């Protein structure tokens, strides 16, 4: 069996020091939980970003099974200055996958900490460990016939609530803003202390998953998208299962319709007539999700031409924009809200409404309806077959939920992507006031020239959006440092001051969101 190339070490760590740390890891975790062989590490190194895999190769991976072991790992890392990159399920795909931000970092994989500690069907919350997947929770809820719904992102069953929430991911139900629904977390700090947020510090408290704020400063948000601690437990609220659920789609034929769609939709989201995280997907997102491929329509290089997009719409009945939403509640509530929704779109004079009864089992309606009701599926992975080649980087700028702004962002993104010969594959995820404008930058990693174009394209997207005052809410590990720059020096200075206070040895995920004591303002 081949062990990892000995030249692959964490930055600044000598071989001797690394070997000593490995021996301690083995004593703490057992040999089977200290992975050093090439074939053990390779599945952690499958990336979709526009660089060689080597740039994100880990030197080792550890699996821990308890909070005490995580504390032990942190202690050893402090002793030997070993940087660790923590993952829960490692399934954020176009946001970086399981690979570490920097070559040589040791992965701490918490997949074996997978206990569902509690699901309370009365107070409607769950408390779980980081390795718990949505699929595991879904099964638990079904087996116990609990009247609650999950909210998850499109990888659904195979992803997990802790990782997704800590990355501030979103889902598609009324509980789709996951960090908003988070309530109470347990965090192992770099000094080994175990900190519980909110009411969690009160001995005997039964409100840890009930009341978010506790007393004094509320620090939960500090641990999301950061490297200030390792989350070992997290609570979150579950939506009570409604008696009636009515998903629907509204299909719009023209790209310019986005202005009217958003302006008509916003009041319905703000006044909670439509309570869930609505999606407005463009034709290529729809096509990929329906498992169509680009090769079925064209073999021309570059971006997919407009006439082909129109052909796809004509062949499939998909729109240039496709809005998916749902109503939840009693029959009376749903009836009233349905009347408001249909009247709104009738008044708009455009948009074809499709109901569940009309759509039947057709895709992509079916998988969208399932996601909005907390039923897992893997349908959206079809996007990876649209162009093929294994490259996927999600560019996710935040937009006002204002039609003109969405049109402006869509046009800007499309222009830049097309300039680089790539497709605009996008969806807007609609909150009452903001939109997550999620664009899947798909490209072919077997083509070095195209990979370089994708890299240049992503940089240009960041640059040009920044000039307009836009920034992304989340990004893959290749571009974390660049995105951190968009948010300004004062914020970065504060983040590094906190880092120095809570992790002076810089052992926890250096580089996460651009926070790295070894590199920030060191040159």
């Amino acid at each position, binding site marked *: 069996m081949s062990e990892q190339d000995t030249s*692959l070490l964490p930055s600044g760590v000598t071989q001797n020091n690394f070997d000593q740390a490995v021996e301690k890891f083995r004593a703490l975790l057992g040999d089977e939980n200290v992975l050093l062989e090439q074939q053990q590490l390779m599945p952690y190194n499958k990336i979709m970003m526009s660089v060689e895999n080597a740039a994100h190769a880990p030197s080792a991976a550890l699996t821990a099974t308890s909070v005490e072991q995580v504390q032990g790992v942190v202690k050893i890392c402090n002793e030997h200055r070993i940087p660790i990159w923590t993952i829960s399920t490692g399934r954020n795909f176009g946001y970086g996958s399981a690979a570490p931000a920097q070559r040589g970092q040791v992965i701490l994989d918490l997949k074996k900490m997978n206990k569902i500690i509690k699901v309370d069907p009365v107070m409607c919350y769950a408390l779980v460990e980081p390795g718990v997947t949505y699929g595991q929770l879904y099964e638990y809820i079904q087996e116990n016939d609990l009247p609650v719904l999950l909210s998850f992102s499109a990888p659904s069953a195979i992803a997990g609530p802790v990782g997704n929430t800590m990355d501030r991911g979103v889902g598609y139900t009324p509980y789709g803003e996951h960090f908003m629904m988070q309530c109470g977390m347990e965090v192992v700090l770099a000094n080994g202390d175990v900190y519980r947020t909110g009411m969690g510090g009160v001995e005997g408290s039964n409100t840890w998953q009930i009341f978010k704020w506790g007393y004094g400063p509320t620090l939960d948000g500090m641990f999301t998208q950061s490297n200030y601690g390792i989350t070992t437990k997290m609570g979150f609220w579950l939506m009570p299962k409604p008696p009636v659920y009515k998903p629907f789609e509204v299909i719009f034929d023209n790209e310019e319709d986005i202005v009217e769609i958003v302006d008509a939709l916003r009041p319905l989201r703000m006044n909670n007539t439509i309570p869930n995280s609505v999606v407005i997907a463009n034709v290529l997102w729809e096509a990929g999700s329906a498992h169509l491929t680009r090769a079925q329509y064209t073999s021309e290089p570059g971006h997919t031409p407009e006439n082909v997009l129109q052909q796809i719409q004509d062949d499939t009945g998909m729109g240039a924009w496709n809005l998916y939403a749902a109503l939840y509640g009693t029959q009376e509530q749903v009836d009233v809200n349905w009347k408001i929704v249909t009247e709104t779109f009738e008044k708009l004079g455009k948009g074809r409404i499709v109901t569940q009864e009309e759509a039947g089992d057709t895709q992509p309606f079916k998988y969208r309806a399932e996601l909005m009701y907390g039923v897992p599926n893997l349908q959206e992975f079809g996007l990876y077959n649209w162009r*093929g080649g294994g490259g996927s980087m999600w560019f996710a700028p935040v937009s006002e939920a204002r039609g003109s702004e969405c049109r402006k962002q869509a046009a800007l993104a499309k222009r830049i992507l097309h300039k680089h010969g790539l497709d605009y594959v996008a969806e807007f995820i609609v909150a009452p006031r903001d939109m997550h404008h999620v664009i899947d930058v798909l490209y072919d990693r077997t083509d070095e020239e195209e990979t370089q174009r994708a890299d240049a394209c992503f940089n240009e997207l960041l640059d040009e959006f920044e000039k307009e005052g836009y920034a992304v809410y989340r990004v893959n590990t290749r571009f974390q440092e660049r995105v951190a720059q968009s948010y300004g020096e004062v914020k970065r200075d504060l983040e590094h001051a906190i880092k120095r206070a809570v992790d002076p040895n810089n052992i926890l995920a250096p580089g996460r969101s651009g926070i790295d004591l070894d590199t920030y303002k060191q040159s």
Partner: protein
Amino acid sequence: MNVDRRSVLKGMALGSLAGLTMGATLPSLGGVQATPGMGADRPVLALVGQGTRHSAFVQGARAANSQLQLQPLDNRLDVMLGLESRLRSSQSMRVMGLLDDASASLVIDLARSAGARVNWIGQHMAEAGQSRHYLLNTGMAEGCARQLSRQLHACGAGFTLNEERQGSAAPSRQLAGPARNTGHPEQWAASIGYLLASLGGRRPAMAPLVTASRTPLTGSFVSFSIET
């Protein structure tokens, strides 16, 4: 709407227990025989998709290992969870395959969470008589890229190949050959099948030479070799 959540749950459970795939049952691993002379005594399962089921990949794989079991796979949730359950089982096995990007992404990720070992991930693009390959592999695949390159060069199939060795500090290896003959557009798939089926064992001969079929294998595919 009445979304039948129970059916999804049952699908997961059945998938986990029986390994249901594409309406057929995964072959019982008890019935999968070890291949003599392969240097590894574990049974070999080859996962294929709709596009690769009858492809040169299978021809090549069978030439190296006539006893490998072929398993069609798609990326339905129950199918994937069934596969993960199999990868987690204590039974030693080797899983190789050539799948579309979506399915392969899931298979490789599930291999990671199941604690399986991965020796080879290949990204392949075949179009207009040319093929491009991006390989990430371990020391077990030493020589494979050169063998693939030699064979494609010998039959005149145009290709480019980039090979990274997992964790290595060495620069990636880049190989290429011009297209001189359009008669073997699927040779890359046959050679990949052959190399993966014989990974870890002796490779006494070259992969079989395959000629163009009526429906050549074009598009994007991912190959892999996983051990449990």
